[in-house]
């Protein structure tokens, strides 16, 4: 696939800044008079604060203020009835263990940390439940519909199929925990002028949330978030801790910085919710799917509902006339979850793609052949053709590279000493989104191009992708193009989520470049020059230092006519130790089918990161709660295991790299999510192939393999 890579392959435009420490992250801004906030958290899981003793903290050295529901710094929206559910510092109610209940602000971080330990809360405790599986079994516990039930053809058709299976799959809570800790610097100045330095996937969304809560015009709020040390979905909303930071700054009239602790990263900024899913599959003896049923339950909080696309994939990924799905959410006394990379689709794909493998086994078919046999030509859910889909080609490339021909269909066939080898495959799919965004382009007589948009870069390399789109159209050297982002005063763009940034903002970059080009050629014609004359000469001839264009771009009718998805295929080889149950992923081949690859290097990095995250999801990651106390047990990086280098083999990344004819001018579909979606199932399938053991509960740790 290497050959298909674009010539424009380039390093990250901000790579040098990042590796030399010059990229400035939110917590690194030094404001005059900066103060430090540390959050005090509840130590009970449910109930009420009956007393909050802040005296000792207030008297501690360096302390400026203790902010809590006792002094309620004004936040107009919180003063009204209704509105946001957990109004930080406006309620004495405890919804979960680790909920922020007060903030100590001091002139140093250390003093604030110490004083925070002196705040003593007294509570009236109530009975609680943090155990999702228990809530699910409890007929009295609430279950809310998370998505409308879906039915095509006969409901539960699998039950009467020639070959059928029905299995349950379990996923624990996973946390995003990017390296960079969450927090904010807020500076509330006179006349309600606010500047914040944030860790956010959407500067406009942060601006909007603050405007709503404090009821001030958005123009008063400047949000800066140029560099983000990893988001993975966690920074898609403005969390109570951020509102608390703004509140505190308003209260004391000084800038306040809050950086939460690693332990607080488990309780204040969401997680991938636990899920329990049942898949029913039916097929005829020839291996044609005749029924798919996907029922899922996801965890949510008691104070806010969270839903995601857990059962989406079952509706269109395989050719099948009878499909039904349901999805309910179950409130427990934990902090509200949030999308985590691949979001609900990754949860759903673990179940569906495991079950597909199980069905292939039941039919004694090669799971790859089974998938190909049931690959749909059109989207049966939307009743539309796919805008582009090259899955069969992707299967072929991946199978060849992983050495699929070495795989034996009979599990446990490849044994060398105590090590058993297995191969697994799975598919990932995610909606190929395109939203609405504006970009401003300033083309200068010095030969440079400045592009601006209030989008974000949480790591994928937004600036690099945008620069390459402009470079290709304008033929301006990459180092003469600057793309500015992460600043709410720039032309609006949506939050970075759902793998949509390149498609959405990239299209606006495309439109701006086209507009600049035609302005230049018009100018050239007017001044008697060749319409293809170099823009620098055209601008000089016209005595113009620069020209400027702003364009808003969005999708059109094409989305009514086509079903648009990005796809990925994950092939893995694993080695499983028969005596110790240790699973090693020994080889990974991934194939992305997501239209044109605009920026090969950062696209490859996306796939690498997805595979590593996938290993974590499959083998190591699980946030453990002691349900007697409602507290996390492993809320640190020694005990919450993300994969380390030694867990990650060489990853062979491949792209189909064929433009999608409809989605956008670049023909490029998103790929941040597909890099992860389905990966965990490929590992589970490979473990089955190696050992004959089907593990339906993640992560696949040695105890489960042995058990």
């Amino acid at each position, binding site marked *: 696939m290497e050959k298909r890579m674009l010539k424009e392959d380039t390093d990250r435009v901000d790579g040098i800044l990042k590796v030399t420490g010059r990229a400035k992250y939110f917590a690194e801004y030094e404001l005059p008079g900066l103060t430090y906030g540390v959050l005090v958290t509840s130590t009970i899981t449910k109930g009420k604060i009956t007393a909050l003793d802040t005296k000792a903290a207030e008297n501690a050295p360096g302390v400026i203020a203790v902010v809590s529901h006792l002094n309620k710094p004004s936040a107009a929206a919180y003063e009204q009835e209704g509105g946001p559910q957990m109004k930080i510092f406006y309620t004495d109610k405890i919804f979960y263990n680790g909920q922020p209940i007060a903030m100590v602000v001091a002139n140093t971080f250390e003093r604030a940390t110490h004083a925070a330990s002196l705040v003593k809360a007294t509570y009236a405790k109530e009975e609680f439940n943090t155990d999702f599986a228990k809530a699910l079994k409890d007929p009295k516990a609430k279950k809310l519909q998370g998505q409308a039930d879906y039915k095509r053809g006969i409901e539960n058709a699998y039950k009467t199929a020639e070959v059928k299976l029905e299995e349950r799959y379990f996923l624990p809570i996973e946390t995003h925990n990017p390296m960079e800790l969450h927090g904010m610097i807020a500076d509330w100045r006179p006349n309600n002028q606010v500047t914040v330095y944030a860790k956010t996937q959407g500067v406009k969304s942060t601006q909007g949330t603050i405007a709503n809560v404090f009821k001030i015009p958005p123009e008063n709020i400047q949000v800066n978030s140029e560099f983000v040390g990893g988001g993975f979905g966690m920074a898609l909303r403005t969390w109570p801790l951020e509102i608390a930071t703004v509140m505190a700054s308003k209260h004391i009239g000084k800038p306040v910085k809050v950086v939460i602790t690693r332990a607080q990263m488990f309780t204040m900024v969401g997680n991938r919710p636990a899920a329990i899913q049942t898949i029913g599959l039916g097929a005829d003896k020839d291996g044609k799917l005749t029924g798919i049923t996907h029922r899922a339950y996801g965890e949510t909080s008691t104070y806010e509902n969270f839903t995601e696309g857990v059962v989406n994939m079952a509706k269109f990924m395989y050719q099948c006339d009878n499909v039904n799905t349901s999805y309910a959410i179950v409130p427990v006394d934990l902090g509200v979850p949030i999308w985590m990379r691949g979001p609900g689709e990754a949860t759903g794909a673990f179940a569906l793609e495991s079950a597909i493998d199980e069905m292939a086994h039941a039919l004694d078919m090669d799971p790859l052949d089974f998938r190909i046999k049931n690959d749909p030509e059109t989207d049966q859910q939307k009743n539309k053709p796919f805008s582009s889909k090259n899955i069969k080609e992707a299967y072929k490339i991946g199978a060849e590279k992983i050495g699929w021909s070495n795989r034996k269909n009979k599990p446990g066939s490849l044994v060398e000493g105590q090590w058993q080898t297995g191969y697994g495959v799975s598919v990932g799919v995610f909606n190929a989104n395109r939203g609405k965004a504006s970009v401003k382009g300033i083309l200068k007589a010095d030969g440079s191009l400045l592009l601006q948009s209030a989008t974000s870069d949480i790591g994928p390399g937004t600036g690099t992708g945008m620069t390459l789109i402009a470079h290709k159209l304008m033929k301006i050297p990459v180092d003469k193009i600057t793309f500015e982002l992460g600043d709410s005063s720039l032309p609006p763009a949506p939050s970075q989520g759902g793998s949509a940034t390149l498609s959405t903002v990239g299209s606006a970059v495309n439109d701006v470049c086209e507009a600049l080009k035609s302005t230049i050629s018009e100018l050239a014609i007017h001044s008697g020059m060749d319409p293809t004359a170099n823009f620098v000469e055209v601008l000089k001839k016209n005595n113009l230092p620069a020209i400027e264009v702003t364009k808003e771009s969005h999708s059109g009718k094409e989305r009514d006519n086509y079903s648009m998805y990005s796809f990925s295929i994950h092939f893995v080889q694993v080695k499983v130790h028969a*005596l*110790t149950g240790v699973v090693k992923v020994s080889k990974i081949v991934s194939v992305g089918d997501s239209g044109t690859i605009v920026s090969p290097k950062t696209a490859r990095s996306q796939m690498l990161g997805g595979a590593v995250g996938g290993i974590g999801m499959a083998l190591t990651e699980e946030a453990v709660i002691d349900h007697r106390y409602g*507290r996390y*047990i492993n809320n640190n990086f020694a005990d919450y295991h993300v994969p*380390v280098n030694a867990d990650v083999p060489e990853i062979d990344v491949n792209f189909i790299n064929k433009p999608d004819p409809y989605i956008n001018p670049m023909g490029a579909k998103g790929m941040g999510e597909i890099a992860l979606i389905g990966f965990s199932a490929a590992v589970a399938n490979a473990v089955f192939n190696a050992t004959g053991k089907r593990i339906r509960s993640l992560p696949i740790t040695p105890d489960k393999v*042995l*058990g």
Partner: protein
Amino acid sequence: MINFQYLRTSSAKSAIALLLKDKNAKFLAGGTNLIDLMKRGVTAPEKLIDINHVPLKQIEQVGSKIHIGALATNTAVAEHALIKEKLPLLSWALQAGASAQLRNVATVGGNMMQRTRCGYFYDTEMPCNKRQPGSGCGAMEGFNRMHAIFGTSEKCIAVHPSDMCVALAALDAEVVLANHKGERKIAFRDFHRLAGDTPQLDNNLKTDEMIIRLEIPVSNLAKNYHYLKVRDRASYAFALVSVAAAFELNNNKITDVRLAMGGVAHKPWRLTASEDFLKGKEASLSNFEKAAELAMKGAKGFGENNFKLKLAPNTIIEALNLAKSKA
């Protein structure tokens, strides 16, 4: 502020003298465990006696023994030519622990003294008899996946988390301890203790004592050895179960054998019954299996850690297999 005094000393004698003066003083070596415990509020010494400048970093052969100073770093020991040649089991065990960065500063004495990783011990909002005697054991009916299956007490089922110590227990090391009156030497196997009724005590070091050095006999165990650590990820994770295995072979007959396990008890768990069985026997799979079976006598699971009842014997067998195949 939680104030504490920081003192630095460059001799063992003065370090011991400082310790004697203040019951609430603690030695600071690499700090990789102690500082974490202070940050989490698990311990709050009033005085930190920095002993990093005390000249106890020697790694040398003295007669038939290898001496390792208490302040030699884990990396220095693991990578020392003498250790690699004569005590490779120790080198392997050290390399299996923590991360390169931690091993670069962690010391031998600190490693011996490191406290359990039981999550309840670290969370001051949770009950824990080890942290706060009488408050109860959070793990007993809670999350005890990492916990002990041997020698447990009703008060505490924590494990000692060290890898290095498992190899040292196997190698019949001795520890030299000193207080203001002088030195004493004890078997390494007697350094750590079972929790019993006093889980707050991890070991038998007296409050006025300092660890000075290890003395490890040079033996013929440098050929057939293996340290096998089973963990949740390939590196940088504590052992679910680990096994230090070494034996001397003569015509495929086992003439000397050492077996110890980590991750299963409040102290490194030496498998004497298995050793006794293997001595004089052939190094065969069936004998390894029998030895593993013998090792499990008295083992008891607490729910989440029941899998160790199967994993432990399997790991013993595999460690012995791998030790054998080294030849």
